[in-house]
């Protein structure tokens, strides 16, 4: 059902955790529907220098979160905002159709985190 890549990121995610002094936190999903994602970003000079996640969800949700962190790390805010669910799915070597929403959720979480960062740093 899942690609090797999805399973790899599910079994050994590299970006799990919290950033205590995060510049932005994006929280999406709800418990009733199944998946909850929390994404933390640390930004320096308009660049995402650190990014971590906490996810309650299926293998697709966990691997999407982890892969998104990997893709966004080191990117500028503008570049990070350009990451789409399709980019994410491509990097994961595909997701079952019924799991596409998990990748959407991960992208949404990043957008929420960036939104919060921008609000905080509005001058």
């Amino acid at each position: 059902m899942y690609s090797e890549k999805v399973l790899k990121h599910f079994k050994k995610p590299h970006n799990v955790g919290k950033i205590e002094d995060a510049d932005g936190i994006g929280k999406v999903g709800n418990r009733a529907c199944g998946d909850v994602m929390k994404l933390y970003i640390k930004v320096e000079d308009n660049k995402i220098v650190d990014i971590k996640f906490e996810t309650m969800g299926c293998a697709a949700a966990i691997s999407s979160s982890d892969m998104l962190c990997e893709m966004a790390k080191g990117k500028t805010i503008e570049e990070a905002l350009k990451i789409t669910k399709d980019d994410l799915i491509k990097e994961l070597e595909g997701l079952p159709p019924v799991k596409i929403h998990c990748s959407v959720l991960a992208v949404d979480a990043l957008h929420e985190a960036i939104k919060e960062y921008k609000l905080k740093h509005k001058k």
Partner: protein
Amino acid sequence: MKMRVYLDNAATTKTAPEVVEAMQPYFTEKYGNASSIHSFGEEAKEALENAREQIAKYINAEPEEIIFTSGGTESDNLAIKGTAYALKNKGKHIITSKFEHHAVLETCQALEKEGFEVTYIGISKDGFVDIDSLKSAIRNDTILVTIMHANNEIGTIQDIEKIGAICREKGIVFHTDAIQSLGKIPVDAKKMHLDLASFSAHKLHGPKGIGALYIRKKDKIKKLFYGGVQEFNLRPGTENVSGAVGFAKAIELMSEKDAQNMKELQEYLIDELLQIPEACLNGSREKRLCNNVNISFSHIEGESVLLGLNDKGVAVSTGSACTSQKLEPSHVLIAMGVKPEDAHGSVRFSLSKYNTKEEIDYTINAVKAVVENLRKISPLGK
């Protein structure tokens, strides 16, 4: 050391080697068509009728009350649709419960589209059909009541004898899906006042592709398939002789001692898993099949537990929405009033007589490690 542990026996079981052995001659030697009147046909027919007799005896029924089908789904379909079509002039109302197997629920829903009316009885929080609601749902035009014997997800055992008595008194046809219970607890067609009962061989170490339907009165059921006149003209199609032989052999192998051993391992597994913080057992612990353990772990999701355990070699199943195409959590747990978030974190472990204490110990450790790891990843419950 990594083990391979199969704890998904409510889905299907290993075919017993004795069953395979019993079936073998009916592929390569006694392969005749049981409806043929030559000697090849006769030996096949004899095996088929012996199997029928054995199964009938096991459930305290007569051989002519048993027909073979392709499995549980077909038996449920034939029982429900067959009764509805046969009795449609008498009434259009059917009663079932909210936590039946999909083979029953979807059949009822299909009949609703054809103009039948269906009442779905609610389930108590410990997993039992509310008999008072069932009684008050009975109408003058009720033609069929279908309630499962033991639930496939949580293993709770319904008071079928009582429900059967209520239906018999009112003259309503009563069907039970006994697919999970057969071989683990007694099924007695007479004592339970059954009119129809569905069975499947592969849930009790028999082969896949063969099931049976107990039918007390054949004039109250209309066949769904057309062709020959096999199975008392209720289920046309060349008889699955090897399957029937395997089914009967599987029944012969079932023993109370095995059930008792499973019960001990089950109790142990439940006790140990409930040591995990924020874990709870779904469904009554007392009136439960000897092989079912269904536990919800808070703050994590069942599919992740399943895949985490699979990585360690342990096979289980989940009521989480994430493994269903519809993305809806288990209808069984929802019917019992389990909160959706807890239903998402539910895991079913179902044992067989082949499981060992060593396997259960390995599983307990694997579950503890997987749950702890997933809770570290989860943002909830911290």
